[in-house]
């Protein structure tokens, strides 16, 4: 049965893409889908379970209920990765240092690509985010996450953008709390400014350098906090 349900899950995914369905669009009721894809209800249910565990669909009961698209494939991947990273972190099979190092491996080249690929709208969006950045560290979280996410989107590689989303979802809330007592907000802000400026200039080397400096600063603060706390 699992072979058949895998196949149906793939067909449903292909259908979503072909029909350009967006999150929130309705796929239909279970019985409609079973008929549409020519499989038994149990096989269909197993396929839907697979898709739901990948965050791609959700079921809703009652009037107007049925099966809905929950996320784009990239969003699905992103959610999966975030979930796995969170699990690994809480089970301590991976540590903060490795996650920070992963940020370097992902986000430094992302910044370089963004500098090569940003258009005027992208630049306006980045500039607006910088202008809106709150003064207070306790409130910067959302702005910080959005800035990094927009840069990842501008880099134009959806797979990589999906792979990096865990940073905002899993890592950053912990990190921000950890370094809150020591970080110099203006320095972090200046580093964001440097990254955006390099992207504005279309200078990938400078963008990579600035991103590296920014993440290394966070690494250094984390290791210092750890040392001071003993």
């Amino acid at each position, binding site marked *: 049965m699992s072979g058949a349900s895998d196949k149906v899950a793939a067909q449903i995914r292909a259908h979503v893409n072909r029909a350009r369905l967006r999150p929130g669009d309705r796929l239909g009721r279970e019985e409609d889908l079973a008929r549409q894809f020519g499989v038994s209800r149990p096989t269909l249910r197993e396929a839907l379970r697979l898709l739901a565990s990948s965050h791609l669909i959700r079921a809703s009961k009652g009037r107007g209920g049925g099966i809905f698209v929950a996320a784009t494939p990239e969003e699905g991947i992103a959610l999966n990765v975030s979930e796995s990273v969170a699990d690994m972190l809480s089970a301590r099979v991976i540590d903060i240092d490795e996650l920070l190092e992963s940020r370097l491996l992902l986000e430094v080249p992302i910044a370089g690509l963004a500098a090569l690929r940003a258009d005027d709208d992208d630049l306006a969006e980045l500039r607006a985010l910088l202008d809106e950045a709150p003064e207070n560290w306790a409130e910067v979280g959302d702005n910080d996450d959005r800035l990094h996410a927009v840069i990842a989107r501008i880099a134009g590689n959806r797979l990589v953008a999906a792979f990096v989303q865990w940073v905002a979802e899993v890592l950053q809330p912990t990190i921000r709390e950890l370094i809150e007592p020591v970080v*110099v907000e203006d320095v972090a802000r200046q580093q964001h400014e440097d990254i955006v400026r390099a992207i504005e200039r279309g200078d990938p080397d400078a963008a990579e350098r600035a991103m590296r400096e920014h993440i290394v600063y966070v690494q*250094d603060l984390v290791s210092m906090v750890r040392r001071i706390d003993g």
Partner: protein
Amino acid sequence: MDRVERLNALLTAVAQGNAFQRERLPATRLADLDGLAGLPLTHKDDLLADQAANPPFGTNLTYELERYTHLHQTSGTSGATLRVLDTPDDWEWWTEGLARVLRAAGVGPGDRVVLAYSFGPYIPFWATYAGVRAVGAMVIPLGGMDSVQRLHTMRDYAATALACTPSYALHLAQVAHRNGLTDAVGSVERVVCTGEPGASLPAVRDRIESEWGARCFDHAGLTEVGPFAYPCDAAGGLHLAEDEFICELLDPHEGKPVAPGSAGELVVTALGRVGFPVIRYATGDVVDHRTDPCPAGHVGRWLPRGILGRTDDMVVIRGMNVFPSAIEQILRESQGVGEFRITFYTDPRAMDEIKIEVELAQPLEARTIQARMRQRLGLRVRLVPVRPGILPEQLGKARRVEDLRPRAAAQER
């Protein structure tokens, strides 16, 4: 008696009674000071090894033990503790050396000098105590008190001069500001520093002077050597007390004299200390070799930059000689710089690097600091700005440097 005669008198006295020196020195008299270069260097390790083999005082004693009246020991910040004995004559010589330091700093009758050193067998406290008495000023010891008690005492007695390490002078001013004890700061006119290079670094000196509203003076010496440098009140920095010490500047690795314009290790022979003599003693202090006199024409070579650092502090990073004191100087040139911590490390590509954690009250100084480091050290540093008040405060002989390079352990003597 000129210096050659004094040196020969010292060698003669030492040759008779001092077992440690007798083995090392020739029996002949020296015709001139150049002859000194033929004598072996003495390192602290030599004295330590002798004391380990002949506990507790070793054999560098010219007289029988009953003649000695003063015991001091080194603090052990850079290794094992060395014990040093003085006779009444030698202690008199020490006292006169400190008196000269204090006179050069303008301390005299009518002054009230507080000594912000801990009690204990460490020489800065006791030598300064003796020196203050010798110049006719009032001595007020502050051992065994915390910083606030010290400030209260200074306020109550309207202290006019403060003797301490440069780090402590900065710390005490901060404690005064935090606790509203600025009137304890107000009466002080002179801050006389030793124990660390800081007070000859213009940026550190300027900060001490502005925090205290006082003039800051530097002096230098070693427990096992004597007070070999006194402050230049005319143009800043230090003078080597070359009437009492024969001073050589040698390359620490090759042992040869360094050329004017470069820096070398100060090697001294103390002419006036007979009971526990040091002859061609490698101090570990690195100073500039300069030949120009100070504007006021004081006695002895002028060291406008003071002690640059310790030979054992000097690190070589990608071919550049780096002293932590030079890094401190650059940091202190910026406004709002607080505590800091320097780490030398080797990155995964086997490149030696410098990381500096520094408290910054004015965050945008970070750029300026980085640019200055690049310009003056010839190196890019990894600067980690942190919020003021985060790093543990370092007092006394401050330990703000950590060397994590795998090769560092092998380089130590």
